[in-house]
């Protein structure tokens, strides 16, 4: 059985935000809800890195643990999904999630948030595959068609990877080896100190 994961290669991401756009378009996500976002660290400085983040489909998902109505479930492929008919919009999953994945359509007085929305790994929800109800609540169901999430599928630099965790690990391991890492600078494709000396 596959164990679906995302991995974002920080040495490849160019902060183009195409994954964000693809996700919004594929799933018809409303304004204000960002299932995926790109965060840039040290923007404009040496060592700048960008990462594309969404729900990481945790094995031990904090959202599912703290949910007061138990609306989360994990599919056979290890994808963490939730049932919007059960969700009461309390926001606990947002407090607990390490990645800021849970999103809410509203942020209003009296704690009115609406039903939580998050990345589904393009796997829809508990409704029948490709049903209008599923599409309106959760967006596209590409997994049912044997396709991977669109964000990763269309990433121009193949920084964002999606798929079985074992396969992703192999791909990333090969990349690291090809970058000629030494024992002292794992996963780095340039030597910062040498650059400092040259500069």
């Amino acid at each position, binding site marked *: 059985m596959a164990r679906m994961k995302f991995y974002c290669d920080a040495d490849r991401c160019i902060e183009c935000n195409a994954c964000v756009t693809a996700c919004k378009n594929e799933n018809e996500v409303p304004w*204000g809800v960002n299932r995926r976002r790109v965060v840039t*660290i040290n*923007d404009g400085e040496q060592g700048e890195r960008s990462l594309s983040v969404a729900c990481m489909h945790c094995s031990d998902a904090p959202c599912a643990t703290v949910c007061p109505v*138990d609306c989360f479930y994990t599919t056979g492929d290890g994808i963490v999904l939730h049932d919007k008919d059960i969700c009461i919009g309390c926001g606990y999953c947002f407090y607990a999630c390490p990645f*800021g994945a849970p999103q809410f359509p509203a942020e209003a007085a009296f704690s009115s948030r609406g039903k939580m929305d998050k990345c589904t790994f393009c796997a829809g929800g508990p409704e029948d595959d490709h049903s209008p109800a599923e599409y309106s609540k959760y967006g596209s169901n590409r997994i049912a068609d044997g396709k991977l999430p669109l964000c990763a599928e269309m990433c121009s630099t193949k920084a964002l990877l999606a798929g079985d965790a074992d396969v992703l690990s192999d791909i990333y391991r090969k990349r690291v080896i090809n970058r000629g890492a030494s024992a002292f600078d794992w996963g780095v494709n340039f030597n*910062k100190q040498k650059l400092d000396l040259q500069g």
Partner: protein
Amino acid sequence: MKIHTLLFVVCLLASVFQVQAANPQSAPPPPPSSLYTSNPGAELWREVRQRDGEVLRGTTQMTSTDAGVLINVSGQLWREYRMQKLIPIAGVAILVVLAAILVFRVVRGKIPIPGGRSGVKILRFTTNQRYAHWSTAILFVILGLTGLIMLLGRTVLLPVLGPDAFSAIAAGGKFLHDYLGPLFALSLTWLFVLFVHGNMPKPGIDLKWLASGGGMFGKHAHAECYNAGEKGWFWLATIGGLAVVVSGLVLDFPIFGQTRATMEFYHIVHSIAAVILIVVSFGHIYMGTAAIEGTFEIMQTGYCDANWAKDHHDLWYEKVKDSAGAEPRQAEVQPGMAQRESTNST
């Protein structure tokens, strides 16, 4: 296991002191740079995970609060608090207090008024005070129950009701909790203003009352209008209520850009204060309803029986008895009421 850990810590401390003894003045020299080539990869992840304790905010196209934070470190602490501390402790505390009340009931039974009812009624609470009490009480019960659904419903109710029915109840509960919460702030303020007079601590009387066990095991100590137990509940409700109200308003209005860390902190304050209030309120509700004869009718009608007052609030009784007529708290005995009481007691 514990001995091993202890030994390890002792060795660690010893080695630290040895190093300090060897270099009393200066820090160790910087390591040779060839060996400690800085690693941008490791530094990146250390920053992302906020290992150094400061919240890293990157730049992002998203405008929502905390969008630039890659890892929400406090989320895990909050999860552990809710799942491993709050839910088990609250559940056990509620069961323990209910069991204690049950034991008290079995041991003491219903406590009667010594000498029976006199039939003489004394005004104890004004209409305004009763309305303030019942507004706060009704709101408290609704807020407490809906809060407990959020806290313990998944453990207790969900297996019984099934996901759809429980979700409907929890959604309705959340709606009531969010909209009635601010009203509780108002009614609690009203209650405080009306009841603070007479609830100021008087150590001389209150400590003696507490030392005697509050009459729980027999003879009553002297008490004025409110005894130390009632004063304790009043101040707990005031201080705990203030904590619940302030933290609740922060949680109820997430429109001022509160970060997750802020919300988690106020949720912890809210839940601790609320669980304490709920647990202690069980005692208050039992004492006020079924525990002691002639108590519930006082908050119902505003009047207490003279013998009840003599037993529980002797100093207050002496005061209102002496100033009969001139004292507005002293009510004229209504013949009908006195008669009804006397027929009841025969």
